[in-house]
């Protein structure tokens, strides 16, 4: 499959060149990396470009509500053991951004592509991937996104005829529902702390029973498949029963889960788990996430959490009290403009931490924390919050645009 066997048509070449030119203009104008505008221009000139750019690659798609950018990065690092990789590493995960990323990788053997949940079925049709990694599905931006269960249904229909190997999390019933229409599935027990979007059976609507790590529908028999890969504490268990230690610089259970799925993907391309996991150690921060920066003589660890499932995983990785915590929430277009989801997050988990609240929607957070019975302080800026915080490294948890604001201010 590898190698540039089918050169791009003149029209496709022109589209790639025009896209690169548009990206350069966008960069010069200070509008970010330019990858999305470049991809849009290229796709308008040649709508089949994405399919053509992918033709010479072994493509892996990665989709989920949470962890897709990090997992894309981990898989890319692992596959580099076998050959050059092109990837949309910065998280531009809609068709235009994907096109732009692939256009930069004419010498690559592998394409490791993060895909927005809504576009997965379409992109999977266009690029005929070798493998698709499905991590989790949960509520996110409900004021503008499709219902979570409908998304699982949409995936299920879209992936039904796919020849790709599906590498899917058997601990998320919605993922199992989405993946089990496919002929070729590798189940990974990657865990899923958040359970509140899958109490109702995706198949028959019955009430799910969830004893321990298991789950099943009491009515129709839809149940957790037996995994061939598993995350077990700090180890990946492979299908032969061998346990491989996970050593990551990235913190938290969720990233161990991402590493486990990534190891299963890498194995599908012939990269053994120990090689894959060793390579993943080099990943230190992903698009600024998990980065520790120095700001106003203090160390800040920057953590992104966009939805209830993400906040839950983030609470489990922060340093224990009395580590100070800064929370920042916005509700701009890219975040979803409804803040109701804050009430699905169990903030009592922050008891004992000094808490500082910033962001466009700090008052929504203030009411949320007041009702949770927590002590907190509302600040106007991150500077004020950092200067008010007691000693020690500060954990900063922010949602999407709040995270971008933060990175701009603290300069990482």
């Amino acid at each position: 499959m590898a190698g540039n066997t089918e050169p791009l048509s003149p029209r496709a070449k022109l589209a790639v060149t025009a896209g690169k030119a548009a990206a350069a203009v966008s960069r010069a104008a200070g509008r970010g990396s330019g990858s999305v505008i470049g991809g849009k221009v290229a796709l308008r000139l040649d709508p089949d470009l994405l399919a053509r750019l992918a033709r010479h690659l072994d493509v892996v798609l990665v989709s989920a509500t949470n962890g897709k950018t990090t997992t894309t990065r981990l898989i890319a690092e692992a596959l580099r053991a076998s050959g050059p990789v092109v990837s949309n590493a910065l998280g531009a995960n809609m068709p235009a951004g994907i096109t732009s990323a692939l256009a930069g990788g004419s010498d690559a053997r592998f394409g490791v592509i993060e895909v927005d949940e809504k576009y997965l079925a379409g992109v999977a049709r266009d690029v005929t991937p070798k493998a698709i990694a499905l991590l989790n599905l949960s509520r996110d931006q409900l004021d503008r996104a499709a219902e979570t269960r409908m998304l699982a249904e949409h995936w299920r229909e879209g992936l039904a005829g796919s020849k790709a190997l599906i590498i899917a999390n058997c601990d998320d019933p919605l993922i199992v529902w989405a993946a089990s229409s496919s002929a070729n599935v590798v189940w990974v027990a990657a865990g899923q702390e958040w359970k509140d979007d899958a109490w109702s059976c995706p198949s028959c609507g019955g009430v799910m029973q969830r004893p321990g790590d298991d789950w099943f529908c009491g009515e129709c028999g839809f149940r957790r498949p037996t995994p061939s890969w598993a995350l077990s504490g700090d180890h990946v268990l492979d299908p032969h029963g061998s346990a491989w230690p996970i050593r990551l610089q990235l913190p938290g259970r969720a990233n161990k889960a991402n590493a486990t799925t990534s190891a299963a993907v890498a194995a599908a391309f012939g990269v053994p788990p120990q090689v894959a996991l060793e390579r993943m150690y080099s990943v230190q921060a992903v698009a600024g996430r998990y980065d520790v920066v120095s700001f106003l003589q203090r160390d800040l660890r920057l953590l992104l959490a966009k939805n209830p499932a993400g906040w839950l995983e983030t609470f489990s990785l922060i340093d224990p009290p009395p580590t100070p915590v800064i929370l920042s929430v916005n509700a701009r277009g890219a975040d979803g403009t409804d803040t109701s989801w804050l009430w699905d997050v169990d903030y009592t988990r922050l008891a004992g931490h000094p808490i500082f609240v910033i962001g466009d929607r700090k008052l929504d957070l203030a009411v949320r924390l007041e009702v949770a019975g927590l002590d907190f302080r509302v600040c106007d800026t991150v500077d004020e919050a950092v200067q008010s915080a007691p000693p020690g490294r500060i954990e900063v948890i922010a949602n999407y645009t709040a995270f971008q604001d933060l990175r701009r201010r603290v300069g990482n």
Partner: protein
Amino acid sequence: MSDNSLRLVWIYPDLLSTYGDQGNALVVERRARQRGLDVQRLDVRSDQQIPTSGDIYLIGGGEDRPQRLAAERLRRDGGLNRAVSNGAIVFSVCAGYQILGHEFINDLGEREQGLGLLDVVSTRGEGERCVGDVLADIDPQLNLPPLTGFENHQGVTHLGQTARPFARVRFGKGNGVGDGYEGAYNDTVFGTYMHGPVMARNPHIADLLIKLALDVNALPPADDRWYEALRQERIAAATQPA
């Protein structure tokens, strides 16, 4: 309501807890405790029986199929209707609001029978989905300050003869019929399209439910500083063009 304990029932979190509406249960519980009440909160899953001895019942919003399943199970259970005939108070949001009416349109596009606790009928709106901040004036009989909330629904709700509009919209869509109404109530059964969650932005509604349960006219004051600050901000946001 017996002695000093308030029984708060949160109905079907497995089906109708998608839009943060469990915040309503948290706010009612918090404000009741701040007034010295002993609160027993009971979360009832849809494979469990609805107790008939609750003082306040809360139902939230959910996706289309879970809404149908919830309606089927609540009709079969019958407990909520019995509780209301015993004088219980019910507060419902969005999908839950539609279920309390006579009928609504389900995920299969069919008319689904509700519980008939509210004299309303819901249909599917033809226009764009109603999404955004809302500001409305609550029925003067209830003596509450203006209603602020976030709406996110396709459904349209028509009030029957006996239902009173819960509020009259100043900014936003509300019931979506074009009559300017938002929500509805029949005696002690309330329905609204407002998320936010609505009690976080309107703690006086939580207090109203507690007063109805206690059968008192007033409650000791609570610290409303953060609620008030949030209300002012959201009311200003609703009145500004998007």
